[in-house]
């Protein structure tokens, strides 16, 4: 083979390379376009119900004509919002009163439990943990009938007090789980060192564990806040429109035969604002809580 042909071959090869490079780039470009087209399509699908909620909430009665169901309001009216707000306001107050203390208390108990189960283990700790965890999965329907009996026998009034008690008790398993997994990453040496200094279980918690716990608390508080805020099952069994949380009030507002669509959609938005704000501001931690729902540490 002469040097000329080698050179030629080389030139040929690089030309082929360039062609296949170009092909690859086009292919990549098509892939990317397809990918974004899909992503945007799904964004539209996901946001469609939100669009309906917002536009319908601003429609007046005359505008609520079904043929215009998907169009923007002709006149933006706030009548629906005013009606929804006056109907829901008392229940919103009750929901805050019930959700905040129960989230704080179950988070605190969960933190203590998680600490003991991760760092102060005793024989059978694993079995105890699994038994506690099972409480997170039970369908509450399976305890509801005797639970109504028990709560009334304990003399806890319907409405906020009952619901507070229930959200604390049934929140314990998930709070314990999240904190146990969180504390598992704290080095044992820290605990050992504190023990060597003669600190007991509580002092070690106070001086070593608790100061490290802020991220765990954020995750747990968000989780508890969201699930208690959105709860309807316990609310249906343990409260009424008079003393119940916002989910109950909303279901009454939206559930009648002759529904005021503007008001009920405005109501749905009002009822979702707190959890949406939490999600938007603290989304990262929100996802953290979701992940721990899958048990794995």
């Amino acid at each position: 083979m002469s040097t000329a042909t080698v050179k030629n071959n080389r030139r040929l090869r690089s030309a082929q390379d360039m062609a296949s490079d170009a092909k690859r780039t086009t292919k990549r470009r098509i892939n990317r376009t397809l990918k974004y087209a899909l992503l945007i399509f799904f964004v539209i699908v996901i946001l469609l119900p939100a669009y309906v909620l917002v536009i319908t909430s601003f429609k007046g009665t005359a505008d609520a004509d079904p043929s215009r169901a998907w169009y923007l309001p002709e006149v933006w009216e706030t009548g629906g919002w005013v009606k929804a707000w006056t109907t829901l306001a008392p229940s919103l107050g009750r929901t805050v009163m019930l959700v905040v203390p129960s989230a704080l208390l179950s988070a605190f108990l969960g933190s203590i439990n998680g600490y003991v189960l991760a760092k102060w283990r005793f024989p059978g700790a694993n079995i105890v943990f699994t038994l506690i965890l099972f409480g997170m999965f039970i369908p509450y329907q399976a305890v509801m009938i005797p639970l109504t009996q028990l709560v009334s026998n304990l003399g806890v009034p319907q409405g906020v007090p009952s619901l507070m008690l229930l959200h604390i008790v049934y929140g314990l398993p998930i709070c314990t789980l999240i904190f146990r997994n969180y504390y598992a990453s704290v080095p044992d040496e820290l605990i050992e060192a504190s023990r060597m200094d003669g600190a007991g279980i509580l002092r070690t918690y106070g001086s070593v564990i608790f100061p490290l716990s802020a991220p765990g608390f954020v995750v747990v508080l968000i989780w508890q806040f969201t699930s208690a805020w959105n709860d309807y099952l316990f609310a249906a069994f343990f409260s009424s429109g008079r003393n119940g949380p916002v989910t109950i009030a909303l279901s009454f507002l939206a559930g009648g035969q002759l529904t005021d669509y503007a008001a009920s959609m405005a109501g749905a938005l009002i009822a979702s604002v707190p959890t949406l704000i939490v999600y938007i501001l603290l989304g990262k931690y929100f996802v953290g809580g979701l992940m721990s729902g899958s048990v794995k540490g």
Partner: protein
Amino acid sequence: MLKRVKTWGPGVLLLAPTIILVGVFVYWLIIENFRVSLTNQHTAKPSNKYVGFENYTNLLADPNFQHSLWNLLILTIVFLGGTLIFGFLWAWILEQPAKGEGFFRSVYLFPMSVSFIASGVVWRWLLSSLQTTQPGGERTTGLNRLLDSVGLGALQNDWWSNPTWGIAAIALPAVWQLSGYVMALFLAGFRGIPDELREAARIDGCTEWKLYRHVIFPQLSPVMLSAIIIIGHMSLKLFDLIRAIVPDANTYDVQVPATMMWVKYIGSDYADAAAIGTILLVLVALVVIPYLWYTSRAEKR
């Protein structure tokens, strides 16, 4: 011995309130509920006559309850299938770093932060069963109106007002709400696969398909299992979404055991309500107990 008690004692003591609360509110109540389900407490008047498993056999023979079990099956299949497909698809697309990835992720996940009661308000309107081709069709709203106006009028249907398949329409909002969650699970799974593993497979001459088939999918199977357990047990318990979309609790078309239990409770038929509760518990336990056992063993390893 005393020394052991000294080291374990405080821990057990700190755990005691939780152990007592969970013991009473979960385990004791499950037993108590089972006891009620074996009595003839069918009215508000207290009655404690032991009737054995009569309530269970009556329920299982009741066409209404059989239909609720059928609905539960359809609901679970559509709910699981839908969330797994969309969750995986989104995670798969978003797995490679892309511009605006965070935005898409947040949008897909946002329905999860809204309550079923709130989303039910709009889905009830979207799934309105009136169709433009029917008498009174000019009052049609929701998806049927949308389908009609984009030229897909033939796809209009009566959604949840269909006794056999209506429950699948209820599963749509559930899929809408929880696919993002399954996506988040799968994304975490994808991120957990080391890059070296993929590189090694590529160097060995794996095609993309083979890479997925033999490397990625096996690595994702624990995540998939978690997703199935979590969505599956949510589906078994689903109550608020159905109540929000179909306010008449007695609607046969979309009755599931969880809503039927509520109907029985309202009618003061506590024994039947308790029996349905126990049946649901057994269904959930069949799914969850092996899973908890599996994870606690996996942790030991």
